[in-house]
């Protein structure tokens, strides 16, 4: 009897336990969901604009409607390309949500598109980042939902085979999951995304260009651009800010292949959220590496007006392939932080290569003080400096020239008797047979048209009063000016 009782109880107990397990399992299946209050439609924007910061302090259900469009747009001046886009532009729409939000994602594939598409958002935790649940034929829509578990700035892109081609045609964008406490406010927020394009033609080849698979596989892009086209952020499209503003750039790299060395010429990143994460903030960074499929947030305060160039510092991409944009800052100057050019003077350093018989120390020429009435001695002093910078190379510091080749100036009959000819020689050069002090010379004197009237007058005054030469009448700037008028160079000017 006892044994039977035990058996019965045991069996009952087992049964109870089993049903208890069943119950528990069912209860576990309906675990409490995070506190989601309300529904809203996501505000989506085209680059370089960003949706406004999120002000709510609670998680909500966000509905995102994103339409894929395959369409022809400008890649560069005179260059068109068929882009595959999330929302009609490259990069795709900027999506802004908050940590903890539940996102109901609708991917629409326009009926005129040729290809099936899907989406992989790096903010999604789940197979394919959503790609497994959003594969959509043209003329159809897919829906899936996910919870935004991790804050940060994330890339999204199409993941339909061949993936490289879909990305290479422009299918990427950014989704920002704001942390619960939000981001520090700034004056301007901008959306910039780098990507490469691989075209059958060369850079700048006009007309409709097609995708080149071989170049893509070999990682040899034709274009490396910001926001889907050369010049998307230059000229009238430049980003703007005022002196004293804080600027935030949400910068992403769609790739498909190249990593970007993002840099803003003329400024530093005061605060940088490395790799788009909230947990690793750096300060005072000059250039940051953004791999394809990654992003970064940079904050900086602009303090000096001017044009700041955004570049990929792999510099040939910036200047030869299009990876350059402009941030124009307007406002008052701040000469303490940046003075602008303070001086622009002539500089003549020591000769870089050795030349014979140069002994005298060279002094830089002081800037010419403009003056109409100058004393002979002042002209002599200035003229000596000019001579020792320029003329001495041929005529030598001692004015003796080079035997058989360069006529002397010391006690030169030609110099002293033909003042006009001598001035002309400086202005327009000289060639042909010339007899100086009974010796024949047949060389070329190059012209010096860059010397001002006053400088020519000064150096002429100096040579006509040196090495035994004497002329109490100085040469005036006016004389030189008269002689200069309408005087073409007789000899090719090597300085031009």
């Amino acid at each position, binding site marked *: 009897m006892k044994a039977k009782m035990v058996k019965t109880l045991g069996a009952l107990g087992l049964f109870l336990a089993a049903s208890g397990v069943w119950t528990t399992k069912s209860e576990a299946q309906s675990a409490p969901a995070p506190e989601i209050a309300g529904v809203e439609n996501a505000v989506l924007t085209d680059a370089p604009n960003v949706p406004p910061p999120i002000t709510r302090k609670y998680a909500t259900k966000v509905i995102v409607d994103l339409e894929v469009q*395959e*369409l*022809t747009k400008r890649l560069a001046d005179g260059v068109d*390309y*068929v882009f595959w886009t999330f929302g009609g532009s490259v990069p795709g729409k900027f999506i802004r949500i908050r940590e903890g939000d539940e996102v109901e994602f609708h991917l629409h594939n326009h*009926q*005129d*598109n*040729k*290809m*099936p598409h*899907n989406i*992989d958002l790096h903010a999604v935790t789940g*197979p*394919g980042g959503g*790609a*497994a*649940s*959003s*594969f*959509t*034929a*043209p*003329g*159809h829509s897919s829906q899936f939902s996910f919870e935004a578990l991790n804050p940060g700035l994330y890339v999204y892109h199409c*993941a*339909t*085979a*061949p*993936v490289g*081609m879909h990305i290479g*045609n422009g299918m990427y964008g950014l989704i920002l999951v704001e942390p619960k406490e939000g981001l520090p406010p700034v004056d301007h927020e901008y959306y910039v995304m780098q990507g490469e394009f691989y075209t*059958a033609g060369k850079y700048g080849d006009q007309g*409709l260009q*097609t*995708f080149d*698979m071989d170049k893509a*596989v070999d990682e040899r892009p034709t274009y490396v651009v910001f926001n889907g086209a050369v010049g998307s952020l230059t000229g009238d499209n430049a980003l703007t800010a005022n002196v004293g503003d804080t600027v935030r750039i949400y910068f992403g790299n769609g790739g498909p292949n190249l990593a970007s060395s993002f840099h803003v010429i003329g400024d530093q990143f005061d605060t940088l959220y490395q790799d788009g994460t909230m947990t690793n903030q750096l300060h005072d960074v000059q250039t940051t590496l953004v791999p394809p499929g990654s992003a970064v947030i940079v904050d900086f305060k602009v303090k000096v007006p001017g044009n700041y160039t955004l570049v990929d510092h792999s510099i040939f991409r910036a200047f030869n392939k299009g990876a350059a944009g402009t941030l124009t800052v307007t406002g008052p100057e701040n000469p303490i932080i940046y003075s602008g050019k303070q001086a622009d003077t002539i500089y003549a350093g020591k000769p870089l290569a050795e030349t014979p018989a140069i002994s005298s120390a060279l002094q830089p020429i002081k800037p010419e003080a403009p003056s109409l009435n100058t004393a002979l001695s002042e002209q002599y002093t200035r003229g000596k400096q000019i001579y020792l910078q320029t003329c001495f190379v041929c005529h030598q510091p001692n004015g003796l020239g080079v035997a058989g080749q360069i006529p002397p100036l010391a006690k030169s009959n030609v110099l002293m008797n033909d003042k006009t000819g001598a001035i002309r020689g400086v202005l327009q050069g000289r060639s042909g047979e010339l007899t100086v002090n009974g010796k024949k010379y047949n060389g070329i004197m190059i012209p010096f048209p860059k010397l001002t009237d006053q400088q020519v007058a000064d150096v002429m005054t100096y040579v006509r009063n040196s090495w035994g030469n004497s002329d109490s009448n100085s040469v005036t700037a006016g004389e030189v000016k008269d002689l200069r008028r309408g005087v073409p160079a007789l000899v090719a000017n090597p300085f031009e």
Partner: protein
Amino acid sequence: MQEKPNLHCRAARLRSCWWIAGCLMLALAAKAGPANMVLIPNGLYHPLFLSANDLKEVPVKSFYLDAFPVTVKDFLEFLRANPRWQRSRVKRIFADESYLNNWAGDLDPGTNAPASSPVTYVSWFAAKAYAEWKGKRLPTVAEWEYAASASATRPDGESDPRFKAEILQWYSTPTPLVLPAVGADTANFFGAHNLHGLVWEWVADFNSALIAGDPGSNGVSERRFFCGAGSQGAREVDDYPAFMRYAFRSSLKADYCVHNLGFRCARDL
């Protein structure tokens, strides 16, 4: 099949030329096959996605294939004869809401569907029904891919990089609202037109493309979703046109009607 006329000819050699002429005509007719169909000879199809125990080469028996995609004009005839396939009467289970979307009315193609353009916005069920009505069938993936592997000048266009480049170029060109007429291109080696560069085409076993919906992972099928698929690998990762056709077929359901998706028929010998 060709021996018969010869026998006839041998036997009738002593008679007038009429018989010879008749034989020749018969011979020509026999070779040409059904109207507007081309003979695709025996060959081998190299599947794009393979499991470990799949054949690397699938033999394709010779068959007839429509030289052109089925046109709007062709399909209109079908609709007259089969009213239940007209747009306002078709069962939703056999065609989704976009069925014949670009037509003006049940029996009026309208300006967006010119008579000699390929008929699109048709579902797999509609395509199958048309083929059956014509005494034909849809080609299989293997048959279609094999026929389409020929370039204009060679039966094996796979090793012609220009051929692939031309196909890829089509993907870079936008779909026009009104599709152009069939037959404007050069026929391929087998005599078929528009296998590339005009519309995607339905095949009988389109649903044999076992991709779970994330074809980006190079087609590695998920064991959880597919029985027996094992781990499939792509044969030639750089055969992007084939990749894209595969991906496109995977995105389809049988009732889908798509702007640039049409079809053509096949027939056994």
